[in-house]
């Protein structure tokens, strides 16, 4: 049976991609952010996932306002990252896992989620940069199932609905009969606002609230309406919805393995976290224990 090991949660700011392409990881501006990643990679080296369920949002590469889905799930064998308008070289994107995609799709529809199924799908920086951070200098050695959440055009799904989506994905993973080692990623945020006279807004207090509750009490994050999240976290800070959904897939009890929080990268409060499932920890490999002590 498949094993769900936990999740990596991270900001996905496009400028990170630029820094990677320029090799700027050790510049003073970038080092605090990139320093978050060695512990993450250590955990990945111990747990060795071979599938990533990627909760992210599309920023106008694959979806436009002609057909804007609330929740979209990839069911392709291959995905591509392409030029998003800035001419940056696309990052490599690992292959899909259509069998698992369809198992999740079946489960979600059975659980009354009205998803849009995508057999042909471009994935943007919100999926490709986190993979490039987790597995630098190569195509990530995993298969992916991308799940895109609308954080662009209001009405957005509520935090409660996103957590429920993640929990339903978690049920699908629990029922999946493959022997894969599966992790989730939740990307975006934390607080930031690109647009309007409040551009540049960040809210470390709310970010801390999110990070502190993500592991032990994710329902706490669903007490705010989308409008309140925008107020607390910024117009683009609502990308926390991706984190909340990803968290939902991990079951009730998880352990925080690592955390980094740094202001600013670009206009954004940057955060990186690793949460490990009870099951992965109970499996009790020495590596997991060692990493836990670091947390």
């Amino acid at each position, binding site marked *: 049976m498949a094993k769900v090991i936990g999740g990596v949660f991270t900001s996905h700011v496009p*400028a990170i991609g630029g820094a990677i392409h320029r090799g700027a990881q050790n510049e003073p501006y970038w080092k*605090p952010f990139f320093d978050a990643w060695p512990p993450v990679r250590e955990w990945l080296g111990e747990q060795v996932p071979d599938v990533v369920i990627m909760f992210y949002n599309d*920023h*106008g*590469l694959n979806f*436009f*306002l002609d057909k804007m889905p609330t929740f979209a799930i990839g069911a392709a064998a291959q995905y591509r990252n*392409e*030029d*998003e*308008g*800035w*001419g940056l070289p696309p990052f490599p994107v690992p292959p899909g896992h259509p069998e698992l995609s369809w198992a999740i799709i079946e489960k979600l529809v059975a659980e009354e989620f009205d998803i849009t199924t995508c057999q042909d799908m471009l994935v943007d920086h919100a999926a490709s940069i986190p993979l490039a951070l987790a597995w630098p200098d190569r195509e990530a050695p995993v298969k992916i199932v991308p799940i895109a959440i609308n954080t*662009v*055009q*209001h*009405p957005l799904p509520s935090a409660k609905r996103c957590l429920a989506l993640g929990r339903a994905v978690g049920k699908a993973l629990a029922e999946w009969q493959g022997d894969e080692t599966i992790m989730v990623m939740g990307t975006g945020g934390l607080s930031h*606002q*690109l*647009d*309007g*006279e*409040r*551009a*540049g*807004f*960040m*809210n*470390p*207090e709310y970010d*801390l609230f999110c990070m502190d509750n993500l592991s032990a009490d994710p329902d706490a994050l669903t007490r705010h309406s989308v*409008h309140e999240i*925008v*107020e607390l976290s*910024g*117009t*683009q800070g609502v990308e926390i919805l991706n984190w909340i959904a990803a968290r939902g897939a991990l079951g009730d009890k998880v352990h925080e393995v690592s*955390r*980094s*929080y*740094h*202001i*600013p990268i*670009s*206009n954004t*409060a940057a955060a990186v976290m690793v949460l490990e499932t009870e099951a992965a920890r109970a499996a009790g490999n020495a590596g997991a224990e060692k990493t836990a002590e670091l947390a």
Partner: protein
Amino acid sequence: MASTAIPGTHIFDGAAARKGYALNAMCFSFNEAANRDAFLRDEDAYCARFGLTAEQRDAVAKRNVLAMMAAGGNIYYLAKLAGIFGLNVQDVGAQQTGMTVDAFKQMLLDNAAAIPTKEMAHG
């Protein structure tokens, strides 16, 4: 729908999405380099092709991001247009807040001061 307005903050809701469709459609087209080139070669013709409203055309002509948003532009799509002009999100933020780019960047850095200290231990 927003029950109370958030100062300095524009919710991209149905009303905005409807108003901004042509402008956002044009910006979405800029995912392709050939379209960015076409825009740069003949901005008027390119805007006309997407049926921009007079308000949208004027906002684009003035490179005025707040005016583009007032005309229904969404920042994710507008960012592709801003990229054509060589503007990044700090430049765009400075323009919208009426600050110099340096002052805007300093404000971003200053946000770090608000990080609760107990959090630093985790960093």
